[in-house]
């Protein structure tokens, strides 16, 4: 049984401009102890999937589908049960870590909060645990840092603090949303190393969300590529990145290699007006007639008519 299983997830937001289909039929599975990265450009809906798992989407969102965690359907759970899962069994770290801390409370205070929310601990024990966590993530001089405010932390340091906060209960599943994006390159490498190390030591299952393919390939064994709210290709990271099959993945990798070969004409569609058929077809260099009419099904890890056994040949 997969550890985390997302089936046919649809997330829609009603807005004055029309219905935004942020997530349009997403299927994903992660096994226990494994690591999956969800890659794609900004606005393709990756964060929405993560927020859906955590049930942190705004009330106006319309969510259908199934999200099974250790067999339980998270979407069907009551709020109080879900609250017990958040932070304890599933934890999430967000991008722009500096804004994720309350500016008027000390960092130590907020880490302790995470420690005390799910367990009965005295103040003293909670503080000890918080300091322990801060050392674990590599924050130097934790006692001094404990009493400081978020604005006194550097970018890398506050990211570490957020990781410490998330790992307070050694959650079974960690969701990391763009953990390296707002950091300097040297600090990025440190954070990646930290995450890899923690993952190995605590045997955490990791769902990584990023648009940085290098980070993805370093940390994750599995990969899923998203475009305009849907998954277009998935499989082992090594295979997907080395021999991409979907035209979008190919273009993405070519662009990432930096040799100027991956320019895709056109731009990402508005989520209120998605194209008919395959979402990528208006920009695809290998589009066929059928691509305009019908959305291909996922077969063998790729959603493209070119690879359908029943249809067009590559």
């Amino acid at each position: 049984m997969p550890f985390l299983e997302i089936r046919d997830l649809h997330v829609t937001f009603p807005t004055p401009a029309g219905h935004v289909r942020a997530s349009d039929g997403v299927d994903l599975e992660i096994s226990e102890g494994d690591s999956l990265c969800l890659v794609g450009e900004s606005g393709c809906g990756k964060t929405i999937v993560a927020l859906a798992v955590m049930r942190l989407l705004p009330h106006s969102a319309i969510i259908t589908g199934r999200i099974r965690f250790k067999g339980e359907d998270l979407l069907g759970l009551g709020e109080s049960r879900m609250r017990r899962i958040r932070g304890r069994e599933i934890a999430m770290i967000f991008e722009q870590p500096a804004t994720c801390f309350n500016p008027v409370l000390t960092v130590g205070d907020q880490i302790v909060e995470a420690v005390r929310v799910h367990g009965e601990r005295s103040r003293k024990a909670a503080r000890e645990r918080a300091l322990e966590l801060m050392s674990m993530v590599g924050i130097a001089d934790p006692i001094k840092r404990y009493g400081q405010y978020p604005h006194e932390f550097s970018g890398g340091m506050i990211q570490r603090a957020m990781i410490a906060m998330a790992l307070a209960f050694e959650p079974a599943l960690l969701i990391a949303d763009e953990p390296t994006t707002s950091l300097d390159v040297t600090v990025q490498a440190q954070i990646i190393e930290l995450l890899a190390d923690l993952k190995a030591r605590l045997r955490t299952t990791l769902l990584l969300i990023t648009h940085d393919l290098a980070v993805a390939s370093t940390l994750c064994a599995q990969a899923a590529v998203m475009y305009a709210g849907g998954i277009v290709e998935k499989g082992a990271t090594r295979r997907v990145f080395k021999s991409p099959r979907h035209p979008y993945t190919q273009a993405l990798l070519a662009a990432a290699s930096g040799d100027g070969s991956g320019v895709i004409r056109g731009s990402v569609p508005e989520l209120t007006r998605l194209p008919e058929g395959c979402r990528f077809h208006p920009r695809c260099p290998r589009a066929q007639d059928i691509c305009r009419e019908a959305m291909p099904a996922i077969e063998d890890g790729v959603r493209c008519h070119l690879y359908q056994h029943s249809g067009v040949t590559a």
Partner: protein
Amino acid sequence: MREVGEAMGPIVQALKKNRLAVIGAGILSVLVFIAVFAPYLAPRDPVELNLAERLSSPSWDHLMGTDAVGRDTLSRIIYGTRVSLMIAVVVTMIEVLLGMIVGMTAGYLGKAVDEILMRIVDVLLAFPGIILALALVGMLGPSLTNLVIALAAVGWVRYARIVRGSILSVKEERFVESARAIGCGNLRIATRHILLNIVTPIIVLATLSMGTTIISIAALSFLGLGAQPPMAEWGNMLNEGKPFMEKAPHLMIFPGLMIMITVLAFNFLGDGLRDVMDPRLKEKVEV
């Protein structure tokens, strides 16, 4: 000018959707109508005494009753609409004009002039508005003219700040630099940009401030420092009606009601305008 007109279209459209703003605009239209056509609408002369009928309750003859010297309250209310609206408009116009002059001077000339003018603004803001207006009218002598002077002298500061702020931000914008590099009439470009920038906040502020201005006019008249009897003004009428609270409460109720309705209407409209013109203040959908 054309751009302002073009910009107005979608604003009015968006405004129509805000029910409160529409109600506000509707009420205001009625009030303006009353003010303009007062002589035709008022059943009687507002200053005509009729001691025989003094302090009578609302009846078919006098829909809002009569006051202590027999004047018809309804007619006085109608003429009072004229006074309040007109004075409020005049005060606001002077405030905006003064504010623009000072703001532009401070903004364009900058440095020392700016510092001095802004310190003066700070000094004026150090006095709570109504107190300074009170004192000014007190010193100048109670009359409607002095009321206008006092209120305008206190209220222009807010507009000056907006205008100056807009000029300062335009000064820093790159396109003015680049336009200057090409040698365009940078003054003209900058001025046009500035004017377009300040029109919106000034309109919003003016509408929202109308309510406060009307209350101030009524308050000062209530204290005997504004409109003088026998002029019919809502604040005045409240003051005159005060001693007869027990016997003739209607004298106190109707003028106050009118003040409240007028201010409500301006606030509805002003809130709506602000929501439409400053969408940053509206809530966003999280995606």
